């Protein structure tokens, strides 16, 4: 049953996604693509939309995938699924906070997870690059326009930081790249 599948899949995503938004993307992508709910391109689109709309990416992805697979009920079920694990865990932690911190094992576990999360995030960007820009899995024909655009975006990002001292906000970059997309294609 699709509702159960949506709930369980997103529950699992919600339960193991340490490190927030971008770390979840790799798991969301993996699950949604293997279930046939999203293509790689749709994954990138939903990430993009999610950056421009309010709300955490995981919740947005759940809502979107649930909606496209099984309408309102589907999106509700997926969203509840992705939120539930952390809801329960935080409740438990809030109630037991002081006591839990005494368990060094807990913080040792979390410390161990940290480098892995960073690796996941960077690898996600790397594999997306390899499959979308270099088209590694479909004949290694580089999408030249995407490659140039990417270089351009990186340069703009670096210049912005030089000039304004802070990183450009995701929204600014997205709007900019949207305009560039229209120009390039």
């Amino acid at each position, binding site marked *: 049953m699709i509702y159960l599948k949506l709930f369980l899949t997103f529950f699992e995503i919600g339960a*193991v996604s340490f490190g927030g938004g971008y770390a979840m993307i790799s798991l969301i992508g993996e699950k949604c693509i293997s279930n046939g709910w999203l293509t790689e391109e749709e994954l990138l689109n939903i990430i993009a939309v999610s950056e421009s*709309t309010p709300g*955490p990416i*995981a919740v947005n992805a759940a809502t979107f995938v649930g909606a496209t697979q099984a309408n309102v009920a589907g999106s509700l079920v997926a969203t509840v699924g992705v*939120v539930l694990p952390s809801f329960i865990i935080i409740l438990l932690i809030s109630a037991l906070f002081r006591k839990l911190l005494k368990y060094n094992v807990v913080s040792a576990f979390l410390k*161990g997870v940290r480098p892995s999360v960073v690796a996941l995030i960077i690898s996600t960007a790397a594999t*997306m690059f390899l499959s979308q820009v270099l088209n590694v899995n479909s004949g290694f024909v580089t999408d030249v326009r995407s490659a140039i655009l990417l270089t351009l975006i990186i340069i703009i990002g670096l210049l912005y930081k030089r000039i304004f001292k802070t990183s450009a906000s*995701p*929204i600014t970059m997205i709007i900019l790249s949207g305009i560039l997309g229209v120009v390039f294609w």
Partner: protein
Amino acid sequence: MSKIKTVANLFFTMMKIGLFTFGGGYAMIALLESEFVANKKWINKDEFLDMTAISESTPGPIAINCATYLGYKKAGFLGALSATVGVCIPSFIIIYIISLFFETFLKVELISNAFKGIQVCVIYLIARAGLKMFKSISKTPFNIIAFSAVTLSILICFFLSINFSTVFYIIISGLSGVVVYFVESIRGINK
């Protein structure tokens, strides 16, 4: 303030915050700080930092974790529930509506071209976030080894089209952290 009033207040405040948090979790933390610490004075700076630390270390979106924690602190289970639901509702509605039109939305050539550009940008944004995090973790041997091992493994699986779930990486590296901890404490005792 009566309990019902507090819960309702939480609900509407979180809904407002949920509506204006563009760009992800960290943006929400800034909003939460100004609303709950500076404005309503419901929690002080130290507790706020605790909450941020917990939210970062536990699974789930940071935004949701913060909402749940604050709600619980303020008004127990009901508070946690209303805060969490409140923060999710705006984005739920917006994304649901967008999903209904997305196919048609993308058929407009201008828009689908814009999205081609945006897709590239997303790769950049993710890489940027990852590199930022990379700079912030300490370069202990464990971290370097874990990071390299996971990255290498993921890339190999990608090229060989093997499907090895992300969940395993998290669990294995967490457990390795625990093992290292035990080894270090045994060593510590021997000194």
